[in-house]
């Protein structure tokens, strides 16, 4: 079999990745020969090697393509969706995941345990996914959707564990009802929002400086000049009684989180 007339290289590549996903999912990584994938895609072995250097590369690239497609679909459905909503939508879908992409991840994880040739590109792939999620988290922190005190990397790691775990614990092994799962995710997400998010409780928020700790770095009065001032020697002072007016909760939190001496507390009265 030669090249299929009228088919572009990109199309051949896509065809190979689709075939790879199906064949790997069906026969497992070890049980698949490169020739099986070429046959399923209707191209020659030579044509396959023109696109992919190895079976390992096919596996990880197939994974990448499917991961991107899922996200592209979610984005396309509602491009204005907030980051937290996006994470929720993906999270809600996880217990129901079925089909080739889920099996592919399982195959790739198993193969990576034994085969350094798979392990290397898998590390890159997992790293890319983690970076992508961490970027989303950062955007959400910048937009006030998520607490800036959370480590984007830790949250990305948590999401990865959920996503990869959902490929392993399939619905036939253990099932969870949509409603109860959604309720749990929503609850988790609200715990990740910036603290003191609700303006109606803001008059209960107060800032405080521990004068034993303060060394006069001045980050508080740089970042939240309407809440903090300084004395004649540059040490931080709380303006007024420290009550945080509505709309200034974020400034208060930033002052707290940027104090190198951890001298600032934002507390509910």
């Amino acid at each position, binding site marked *: 079999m030669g090249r299929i007339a009228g088919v572009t290289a990109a199309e051949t590549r896509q065809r190979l990745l689709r075939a790879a996903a199906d064949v790997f999912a069906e026969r497992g990584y070890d049980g698949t020969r490169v020739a099986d994938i070429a046959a399923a895609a209707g191209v020659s072995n030579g044509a396959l090697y023109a696109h992919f250097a190895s079976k390992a590369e096919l596996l990880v690239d197939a994974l990448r393509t499917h991961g991107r497609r899922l996200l592209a679909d979610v984005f396309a459905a509602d491009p204005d969706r907030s980051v937290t909503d996006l994470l929720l939508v993906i999270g809600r879908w996880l217990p129901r995941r079925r089909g080739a992409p889920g099996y592919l991840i399982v195959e790739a994880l198993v193969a990576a345990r034994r085969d350094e040739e798979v392990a290397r590109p898998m590390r890159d792939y997992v790293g890319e996914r983690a970076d992508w999620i961490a970027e989303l988290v950062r955007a959400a922190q910048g937009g006030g959707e998520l607490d800036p005190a959370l480590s984007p990397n830790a949250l990305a790691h948590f999401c990865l564990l959920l996503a990869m775990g959902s490929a392993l614990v399939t619905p036939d092994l253990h099932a969870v009802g949509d409603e109860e799962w959604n309720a749990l995710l929503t609850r988790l997400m609200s715990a990740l929002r910036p603290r003191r998010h609700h303006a109606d409780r803001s008059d209960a928020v107060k800032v405080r400086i521990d004068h034993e700790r303060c060394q006069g*770095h001045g980050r508080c009065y740089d970042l939240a000049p309407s809440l903090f001032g300084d004395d004649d020697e*540059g040490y931080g002072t709380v303006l007024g009684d420290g009550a945080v007016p509505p709309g200034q909760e974020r400034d208060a939190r930033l002052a707290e989180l940027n104090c*190198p001496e951890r001298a600032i507390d934002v507390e509910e009265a």
Partner: protein
Amino acid sequence: MAADDRFTEDFREAREDELLGTIAEVVTGPVADWATDFSHVEPEWAADPYPIQDDLRQRCPIAHTGRFGGAWLPTRYEDVAAIAYDTERFSSRSIILSNFRPPRELAPIGGSPPISSDPPFHHDARKLLLPAFTKAAVQRQEPATRAFCHSLIDGFAGQEVVDAAADYAQHIPMRVISDMLGFPPEDGPQFRVFVEDLLEGINLPPDERIERVSRLFDYLLVQVHDHIDNPRDDLTTYLLNVELYGQKLGPDHVVGTMALLLIAGIDTTWSAIGSSLWHLAKTPADRERLAAEPALLPTAMEEFLRAFAPVTMARLVKEDMRWHGVDMKADDWILLSFPAANRDPAQFDRAGDVVIDRAVNRHAAFGLGIHRCVGSHLARMELRVALEVWLERIGEFTLADPAAVTWSAGQIRGPRSLPIRIR
């Protein structure tokens, strides 16, 4: 007014007696293993210390060297912070690591109070300086600083490539601190020599080092006498008149503090400005973003301070002890690397990346604890103004020759030669 007789020849002799400390053998040359033989004055460290620090943090978080008579290098944020806070077990009586250890009797005042002082004296000596360095006080220097930055850029007219370190960054803190101390502005080139002698010359033979350091004190004495004869509204006159415990300061306290303000005020900020411009010159995305969003500059500046923290301090171990798993001996040095702490992944997300919109940035560039850099508000003002003027006046700029960039060795790190193409 009665003549001020504190600054006589006797004072010089008394000062020389204080220099009777201990001297270690000078060891130079390539480092065999950074975990057991580190040296922060070797070219490899000066060129790029971060991979070395990252490696040490992983495999040997408190590294050791036999050089300088024995020194330790912690690279984790947690350990650096613990030492900065522990003035009971770590002394500041010398904060520049060298082959010379001043005698223990020099504590708690040290040679350049208050940076070289330990509690309880430290607090009282520091209190004298704080009012002159508050945010409001340093704001008074801002218009002159801005005008001076513009004049430096005016001087670039007709040039395609300029040295952003030598022709821009270094002059800004020199001018600001000499104005504050009331020294002649044209003495700048001498200040550069003093800075290099003190901070980079640590492996010179002891006699030569003492000789060079005494040149700085000769210069400061000339300024002291000029201010005694012609008092004026500046920090030198203030130090000559201010009282502590009911009397004027001792002569070595006055001159030691002048030396501190002069030296610590110059190459630190010079380094911070230079490193920031170096990053922007080689990172077009960040340069363009800052040009488009000037309001982001204060946040970006904190990130430059984190990622390129110019200042590493030193401490001396007070007594033999087991500390965080290593056996420290009395008089061992600690190289207190705030730059290494600032890149600890346990403390900072994406610690090795420069993230100019990092909103939460609890960095330690100005130190932690009682020795927080007294000039931090001044440094931030100078850095902000220097970057604002540069970005406003020079739209596009790139590294003219990345290989020609050179970095200072020793405890203060920043570019010393930084050719930048400005059109």
